[in-house]
């Protein structure tokens, strides 16, 4: 192989592996935040490439809202059994039971915002000093400015004005006690890059990414999976549609798109033709133009 023959996917992969190894080398107790979505599944594959035949130098951490798609949970458990790595689960239900957060009510109720508290508690309990996440800079404007190593203060907050300059491929992971760093190895990947990589590597995904028949309701102009956690009432018309999900989040805020794409090649074709960028199907960003920035300052992924 010659340098001129390496494709941009090879370059992105090499960079991500480099970043994962920096985390292993620089931190005492890192963790990989695993959502069950394609980006964190890609991170798991990259971690295998970075550390095999050794074990991962970090556990996987999943924040379970209790409103996850059942397909995601069974995928997660199968994957953990296959790779033989440690999984730590933080339950939003526990935060609710402990009275740390109050469950929203009404039709648009979602546990999405509540998981920030559970995440911060799980980080504190595990004494994690670095949390690897699958966020990408192309997802949203606020993320375009996020560093690869992004320092959070003891309250889990991100301060866009105090970001450290990142020069060359040198990442400064020095932190004070109580602080932690969010690390984003696939910052420079786009949605299509991730899909092309998944295809190249034959990475298995939860079935909800592929078109399937499902009971759905329409909320705020978006198709949502019919589920008890959506607090459905008589106004909600349940319909059977052929759909798939472009992101895997909480059922209360992850909208489906109508689709017949049941193979990865079809999905990639569909994305290429797509008129909606990925987070457009996530209702939580629609709240306001600055929604993501506000949540990041508050410690969201």
């Amino acid at each position, binding site marked *: *192989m010659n340098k001129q023959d390496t494709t*941009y996917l090879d*370059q992105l992969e090499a960079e991500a592996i480099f970043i994962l190894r920096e985390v292993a080398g620089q931190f005492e107790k890192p963790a990989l935040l695993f959502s069950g979505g394609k980006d964190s599944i890609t991170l798991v594959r990259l971690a295998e490439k970075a550390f095999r035949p050794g074990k991962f130098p970090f556990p996987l951490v999943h924040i379970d809202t209790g409103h996850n798609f059942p397909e995601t949970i069974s995928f997660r458990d199968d994957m953990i059994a296959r790779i033989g790595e440690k999984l730590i689960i933080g339950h939003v239900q526990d935060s609710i039971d402990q009275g740390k957060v109050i469950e929203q009510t009404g039709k648009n109720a979602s546990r999405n915002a509540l998981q920030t508290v559970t995440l911060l508690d799980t980080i504190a309990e595990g004494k994690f000093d670095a949390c690897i996440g699958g966020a990408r800079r192309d997802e949203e404007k606020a993320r375009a400015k996020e560093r690869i190593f992004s320092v959070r203060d003891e309250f889990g907050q991100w301060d866009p004005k105090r970001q450290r*300059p990142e020069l060359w491929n*040198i990442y*400064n992971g020095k932190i004070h006690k109580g602080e932690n760093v969010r690390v984003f190895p696939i910052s420079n990947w786009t949605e299509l890059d991730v899909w092309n990589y998944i295809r190249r590597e034959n990475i298995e995904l939860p079935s909800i990414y592929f078109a399937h028949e499902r009971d759905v309701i329409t909320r705020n102009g978006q198709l949502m999976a019919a589920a008890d956690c959506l607090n459905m009432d008589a106004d909600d018309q349940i319909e059977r549609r052929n759909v798939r999900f472009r992101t895997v989040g909480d059922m209360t805020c992850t909208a489906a798109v109508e689709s017949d794409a049941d193979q990865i090649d079809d999905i990639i074709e569909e994305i*290429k033709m*797509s008129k909606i960028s990925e987070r*457009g199907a996530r209702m939580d960003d629609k709240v306001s133009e600055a929604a993501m*920035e506000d949540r990041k300052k508050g410690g969201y992924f």
Partner: protein
Amino acid sequence: MIKYLRLQWKTAKKGVIFNMDLLKFFTAGSVDDGKSTLIGRLLYDSESILADQLEALQQSNRKNDDGTIDLAILTDGLKAEREQGITIDVAYKYFQTDKRKFIIADTPGHIQYTRNMVTGASNSDLAIILVDARNGVVEQTVRHSFIVSLLELKHVVVCINKMDMVNFSEEAFNKIHKSYSEIALKLKLKEVTYIPVSALKGDNIVNRSQNMPWYTGKSLLDHLETIEVNEDVKSVQARMPVQWVIRPQTDELHDYRGYAGRVLSGSFRLNDQITVLPSGIRSAISKIETNMQEQDEVHSGTSVTLHLKDNIDIGRGDILVNSTHEPIVSQSIEADLCWMDTKPLDTSILYLLQHNSKVTKCKIRDILHKVNINTLEKIETDTFQLNDIGRIVIRTAEPLAFDLYQENKLNGGAILIDPRTNLTVGALMFRANAE
């Protein structure tokens, strides 16, 4: 209405992996040179904007004077910026055509953000310098070009923007071309390309302009798509800093010991004689793995796991190099420094120096001078304030194995960390061994 992503995806046929590479570039210009508009125009005209982003753009109440969409909104990320209407940090943007994938570092032009420009430049293969056709080469142009030369960017594109405001005049273009050539000569910039553009109107950004028939060169995008930037291919300096040692310590892999890292430059081949630095112990490569598969050779940019014939004590912070072309090993180094902290340089304290996977204490032995980056004059000083750039001599607690920045960027650059705040406070470019 927009034609969706035609350019972007037309070669992406089913089952075909793109055989294309990555170009990282950054843009520098003064406050009103129209940088964000230029990037917005590149994204917009190359059809890299998705429908909901376009919708958000159209709903925004920021419009140009003639009522068209303000494309600069596409790169303004933070609330404070939207309020002030300026870019205050480095924003990364992505797009791809059928020839290349691009990563843009959008960096601000204000003097107080020189450090962001240095950051953007350190992560780029190419620089776009914007010059306002009405104002010509100004103080900021010199400053931006100085940073480009300091960071050793080999490829520079001077976009002479707002040509629509000077009636697309060839004379105006030639005048700026001439005065910039003098700067390029002074700063020893090697490859400079001049393109007359109007980011606002779209002339010569993606499509060749109908308004400037006298210009026979490529449009900006055409230039970015075709320029050859793989300069590391011929490097003989094989370097791999060790990031992590893979030792499974299981029964079946009892003796497995792999040194994990990324090849910074050059190539490693099976049986190559290598030196471990700074210890100086020599051995040979017994096995090369990438992605759990054995290879005969690996090249710069690849993340690998190397195995050696001898059992040597090697850990993070060591660097493996080919024995035929070893780097400098020294504790005293003359370096260019860009100061990046609001707190000035304090010569009485010890800083931490991070050079690839190595972190060591370091003190400032001497300040040689700083540079007035607007006039390029060297001036005497005893400290560095935020955004100051100049030459110093450092002394490190442990020896560093490094190359000169002008010869090998990735093994010739380092950062300074303030141990009191843990902030990255300085960028160092090693220029000479001072031992």
